[in-house]
């Protein structure tokens, strides 16, 4: 047990210690090559430690407790894998322009993002969350363009407002729970007199990070302007921190709250469909992908709403949300990294690259035998209308199908604009490695990563054949719509 504790500590200490490399300007090249190493202890912890690993740090802040559980394990594996892939990519991607500064902010953001996953007490969780938020600003404005600065301002303003909502919500919840541990909050919030206010504050506060509709304005501005590896972690991993915040603080499994369920299902539906509507109009690949993230987070919000509406299903839904988080994070990370890849000169090489770029996108929309298909089937299995009693429950399957169509539309749009944006040439080897790592983990490694136990897809290679049609028709429909749209644009 002792060694496992050390691993959790190392997961945070190593990134923080690497800041020493920033002490001298001439160490910045060494720092660049260290970036991929930073998330390794966390990845190791996520893969090898059991869900019971925990580490008490009584002197830290107001009494610290770090550890894992099944949900956190999934989040940790995703976060560490993506930061690893993006870190490798960054080694090849980064220019000398403010290299040291970028490395510092990268490291701090990474430490915050990993730390908030393993933090089990409120003070450390909030500390890591804030660290990630504020350090993330450095990644957003790194390029220094007018656009980046504007995006940074919006990001920061909304993030600070979000932080304040979170702080107030957490203060009230902790006061109610009379305990500084996250694990004690849901029950206390469920019992609170001012439950609606606490829930509102936490939903809104974390919702800023999660790109909840109306709180999302910063997201399509900030995700695209950041340097590409930073965009990948922003949209793949950091966006999930808001979701995790919901999952660990709201009263899931304590009481059924159909009212809140309805609200979140509506917000999720608006996010998943509205994100697509706004996204297809954009011309820059990264902006389209950012809207796709809003859309995907909408689908996850749908599940969060269902889990709030019916306490019984919170447990299994958590497992599916975990699965979906892993799937979306890796696929989106790979897509973002691919925006910076130049095409090889040869035709066959180009085709191969396009297929590999498209596959994670198709996975997002649920192509059979991809991670997306597995998560979508698991999600459908649970979100049957008969399992739920709240007003919007009957519409869940329709919303999910509409979401799948919307996703595929965005993917087509992304491929379309990417085709015009992309150049040909050589990529640095580290960019190949990083992108390859993200793509392989999205397409192949996904199946071997530790899945949440409860999200078992029964006999699923077989079941995927059975449900192939339900998976494929949204893709086909979206393809037809895209083809029609493309033709009409061409004729004009």
């Amino acid at each position: 047990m002792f060694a496992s504790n050390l691993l959790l500590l190392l997961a945070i200490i190593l990134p923080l210690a690497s800041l020493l490399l920033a002490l001298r300007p001439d160490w910045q090249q060494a720092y660049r090559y260290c970036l991929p190493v930073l998330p390794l202890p966390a990845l190791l912890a996520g893969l090898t430690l059991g869900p019971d690993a925990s580490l008490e740090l009584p002197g830290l802040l107001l009494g610290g407790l770090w550890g894992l559980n099944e949900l956190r394990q999934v989040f940790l594996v995703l976060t560490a894998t993506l930061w690893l892939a993006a870190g490798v990519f960054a080694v090849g991607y980064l220019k000398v322009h403010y290299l040291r500064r970028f490395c510092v902010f990268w490291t701090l953001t990474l430490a915050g993002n990993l730390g908030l996953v393993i933090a089990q007490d409120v003070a450390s969780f909030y500390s890591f969350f804030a660290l990630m938020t504020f350090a993330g600003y450095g990644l957003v404005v790194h390029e220094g363009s007018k656009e980046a600065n504007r995006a940074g301002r919006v990001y920061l303003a909304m993030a600070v407002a979000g932080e304040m909502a979170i702080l107030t919500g957490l203060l009230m919840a902790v006061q109610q729970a009379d305990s500084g541990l996250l694990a004690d909050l849901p029950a206390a919030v469920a019992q609170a007199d001012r439950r609606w206010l606490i829930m509102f504050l936490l939903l809104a506060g974390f919702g800023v990070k999660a790109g909840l509709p109306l709180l999302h304005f910063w997201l399509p501005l900030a995700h695209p302007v950041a340097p590409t590896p930073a965009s990948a972690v922003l949209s793949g991993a950091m966006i999930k921190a808001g979701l995790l915040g919901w999952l660990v603080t709201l009263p899931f499994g304590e009481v059924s709250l159909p009212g809140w369920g309805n609200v979140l299902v509506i917000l999720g539906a608006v996010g998943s469909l509205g994100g697509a509507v706004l996204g297809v109009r954009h011309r820059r690949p990264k902006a389209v992908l950012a809207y796709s993230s809003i859309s995907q987070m909408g689908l996850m919000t749908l599940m969060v709403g269902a889990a709030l509406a019916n306490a019984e299903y919170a447990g299994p839904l958590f497992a599916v949300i975990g699965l979906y988080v892993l799937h979306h994070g890796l696929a989106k990370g790979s897509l973002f990294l691919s925006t910076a890849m130049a095409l090889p000169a040869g035709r066959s090489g180009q085709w191969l690259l396009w297929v590999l770029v498209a596959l994670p996108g198709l996975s997002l929309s649920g192509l059979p035998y991809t991670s997306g298909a597995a998560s979508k089937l698991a999600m459908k299995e649970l979100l049957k209308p008969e399992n739920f009693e709240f007003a919007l429950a009957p519409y869940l399957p329709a919303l999910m199908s509409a979401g799948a169509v919307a996703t595929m539309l965005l993917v087509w749009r992304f491929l379309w604009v990417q085709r015009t944006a992309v150049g040909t040439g050589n990529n640095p080897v580290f960019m190949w490695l990083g992108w390859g790592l993200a793509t392989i983990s999205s397409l192949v490694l996904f199946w071997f990563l530790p899945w949440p136990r409860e999200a078992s897809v029964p006999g699923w290679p077989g079941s995927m054949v059975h449900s192939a049609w339900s998976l494929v028709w949204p893709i086909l429909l979206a393809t037809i719509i895209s083809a029609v749209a493309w033709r009409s644009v061409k004729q004009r």
Partner: protein
Amino acid sequence: MNLSVLMPVFALMTSLLASVVLFALPEKGHRLRTIINLAAAILKIALVGVMIWGVAQGCKYEAAFTMLPGVEFVLRADALSMLFAGLSALLWLLTTIYAVGYLEDSPNRSRFFGFFSLCVASTMGIALAGNLFTFFLFYEMLTLSTYPLVVHRGTTKALRAGRNYIIYTLTGGAVLLFAIAWLHGLVGDLRFQEGGYFSDIAPSMRGPLAIIFVLMMVGLGVKAALVPFHGWLPQAMVAPAPVSALLHAVAVVKAGAFGIIRVVFEIYGLEAAKDMGLLAGLSVVAAFTIIYGSTRALYQVDLKRRLAFSTVSQVSYIVLGLCLLGPVGVAGGLVHLVHQGIMKITLFFCAGNYAETLGVHRIDELDGAGKRMPGTSVAFTLGAFGMIGAPPLAGFITKWTMGSGALAVGMDWVVAVLVISSLLNAAYFLPILHRLWFAEQCEPWPHERRWGRLETSAWLLWPPLITAALMLVAGLIANLPFSPLSWAELIVAREVAL
């Protein structure tokens, strides 16, 4: 005489004697002066450290003698005095180091360091004072010893600020003296006592006591820069940076806040003050000051002036904390006495570094300063985030503790005040940080000096780095014994029976 009597006297005498010696030293004795300064500061830290340890173990340190019939001079070390004395001893050392670097080659150093020591001796006296009379003695001594520091540069602007300062503080002092004398006439000489004196006071006494309370708050509120008595503080920032640092972090504003703590806790008693309805008014004034100071800070273009208005706002956290009638909230207010001190001194050190190294005084001249002066800018960044209350820094511990305390006693509006203040703090600090790290330097620095390999003189660089580290540590280990928070909780447990 045994050691428990002598310790507080020694702690006071170290800086008092140092001051006398420093005045006597010739202007040229630079090295000797520095040695005396540092030796006295280190000796004092050791003395205070021993007393802190002793107080934690339950020892009593007290020295008293009768000055006039019915008026005693009392020096006493209790948990509350150690909070202030510890802060003051620690920051004195760092500020002395900083001042030595800052005043290199400037005239009148003998005078400066003499009054500087005298000023610290006064703060020590304020911390250790065991009754209102002794407190007042040192409180006025502080006014007189800081005046020469504020006007040190001798410019017209400095002289005007100094005159303003002396008018404000002497008037405040007169009001305080009047209130103390009135109280003395009513109830005699009162030593500071845990739980206060007036918990079961006769109803007929309530009227005069309430008026006396208000008068005392006015007298003390001048130094604590409560609105509307804060006018002197933003002007006083013309003083040299080490003086501003000391003024804003330890000496003057803290003396006012500390006096308010003493009066509320140990003369009136929290319960009595609440029953008489005195704290409700005080909390409103404090809350207003918090918002007002932050709002004014937003519109300042001069870095030190912005920091000065930030002080107006932050010191009132301490006062507001006292008005949260529960152990948690009160601890939050007390701990901010220390937290605000180390955060604000960091920021002023950094402002001084920018001025001294680059000649930068205005915020819009700071573009790209992070690249030129990374160490200073890291310290400034930490200080700014601390002020915003971002975790895991010291300011967060304050905000969290005060917020919890407010909710525990049903004063939810205080949380709203804290949130608004944090938003305002973010609004006036984050743009500075953007300039430091992300803006490109457009024009040459107004008045740049080079110090070889380092970004600035080592004497100037290390103090802010150390205080920034302290601020981080104070937040990170808040739960360990002897952290500021634990000490504040110890005070609350010992002194205030709630």
